[in-house]
């Protein structure tokens, strides 16, 4: 089985990239292949790259409080291009917003304070799940 391919990016204007880089390193050390697109990426850029890179999972991180609006844009763009790649959102996400994100189609949400091994496991499990059902 090939390694899980994870595409990570920062949508919106937020520059807090400590968390996403830590997750990138954690995934790498757990055997995943990680592509990090960097800051201020549009939904079009993120899903375009995810398809080009044949990603199994897409992960984004938002610490500006704009997670709901940005997740809406990301989920809409994923539908528009007809992709089924699971989307994981991390950041300063209060519990009720996490429910809203899941309801709109985000596969997993990890708020600040989540333990790194749990985040890594969750992403790898989503990748394995997609591999199995593909």
């Amino acid at each position, binding site marked *: 089985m090939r390694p899980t391919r994870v595409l990570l990016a920062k949508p919106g*204007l937020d520059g807090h990239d*400590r968390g996403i880089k830590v997750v990138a*390193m954690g995934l790498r050390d757990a055997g995943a292949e990680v592509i990090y697109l960097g800051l201020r990426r549009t939904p079009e850029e993120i899903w375009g790259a995810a398809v080009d890179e044949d990603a199994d999972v897409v992960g984004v991180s938002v610490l500006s409080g704009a997670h709901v*609006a940005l997740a809406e844009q990301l989920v809409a763009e994923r539908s528009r291009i007809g992709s089924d790649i699971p989307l994981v959102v991390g950041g300063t996400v209060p519990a009720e917003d996490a429910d809203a994100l899941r309801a709109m189609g985000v596969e997993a949400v990890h708020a*600040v*304070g989540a*333990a*790194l091994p749990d985040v890594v496991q969750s992403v790898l499990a989503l990748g394995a799940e997609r591999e199995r059902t593909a």
Partner: protein
Amino acid sequence: MSTTDTTDAGIPVAPVYSDADVAAGLAERLGAPGAPPFTRGPYPTMYRGQLWTMRQFAGFGSPEDANARFHFLLERGQSALSVAFDLPTQLGYDSAHPSAVADVGRVGVAIDTADDMVELFDGIPLDTISVNFTINATAPIILAMYLVAAERQGASLPDLAGTLQNDILKEFMARKTFIYPPAPSLRLSCDVIEYAAGALPRFNPISITGYHAREAGCDAIQELALAMASAVAYSEALVARGLAFDSFAPRLSFHFATTMDLFEEVAKLRAARRLWYRVATERFGAIQPASGRLRFFSGNSGTTLTAQQPLNNVIRSTIQCLGAVLGGAQSIHVMGYDEAYEIPSEEAVTLSLRTQQIIAMESGVARTADPLAGSYYVEALTDELEERARTLLDELDAAGGAAAAIESGIPQRWIAESAYRLERELASGDRPRVGLNVYAADDDEPHLGEMFAADPGVAKRHAARTAERVAARDEVACRAATDAVSARAREGGNVMPPLIDAARAGATLGELADVFRLAFGEFREPALW
């Protein structure tokens, strides 16, 4: 790494310290408070002469929303203001810009025009209240708008006090709100410093910061070295313009984090002052003592706070605020205990301000200057931190200085590797954090007061307001003023005078940022990790 026998930055700690642990010549390394090398503080009587400035970082929504929060804080005894701008304002987009919509008014106030700045400070006399601006890539534009607002109040420029963050180098290292490539960005920062050196004698035109690198992951030693390397880079650029070091150095200010390792943080802040004095005199031949007298703002560390059991954060912030006071800070911000969830509620900011007031008025720690001086442990740590930071500063110099080191990704790597190490220590439990990896109770509901609720309508309303103002301005005059900014950007010379004219003529922040985008291009960072 165990946290029991080393400091947070990894310096080994003995169970007991004695005079044998403090190298000879301590008196010379300390000096008196207010005297070179300023280890003991920038002023002779420190807080007896003037208490630190309590400066809670605040701003959200529209200018009226943020103005209401400012009045709320001032009514509760805050002594100065510190403005948080939203990301579109920090990145040079008006509220109507398609890239801006999701972020308008979220992490700070939305400012499009000088009229917005007038509303932001409505009822707040700018000739008596000092104002801090956390703004960097668009710092020259924001300063221009602020000066127009002050002018409309009838305030005179020499009376204006405050601080503009304006430290673009650390944006490339850690904070990430850059717009233009490094070289023109550095030029804009220096234009502001040069302009202020003449026009704004009470204003700090830059706050050179190690704070953001620290919050992004690096340790206390790296934080010191990076701040010093940046200070050297700005100073060299200004000296290369023909300015005398002593003409601008007294107005350079600094910004450091104060985190949980109390004595290491106090030692770091004391070492920072000595290090800067030595850099100022040894490298730049400072003549005036004030040129080597480091003054700093300290923010508590948001990354040490937890979403779990959020009331624990009140205790963490108290310890950190105490560290900043024992380290001799000139102004302090205390985090809200609910910041892992939202921008702070009124209850949380009040508690942050009360934390400062209780330390100032009840604990007695402000009674005497540098109360930890002479502690064997603190002096040994101060010496060790200074020496280790000097070694790293030499490494950065060998890499070509701060700007070149950023281009080769050195600080970015320090920060990412250190952040990852810390996260693994938290996951393994080697680094205890109460409520997170020890004494964590899964069934505990967080105890939060009423949380801040963002206003979803602000982007549309603010964009409409700006559109009205743009429609009402004298278009010909405004166009001429922005053309003058463009010419100055391309042909050289200080951009501040034409920027102030353009702000007065009603040019928007987005328009002015675009003038520089056209002249300088935009920077896209390599995604290093």
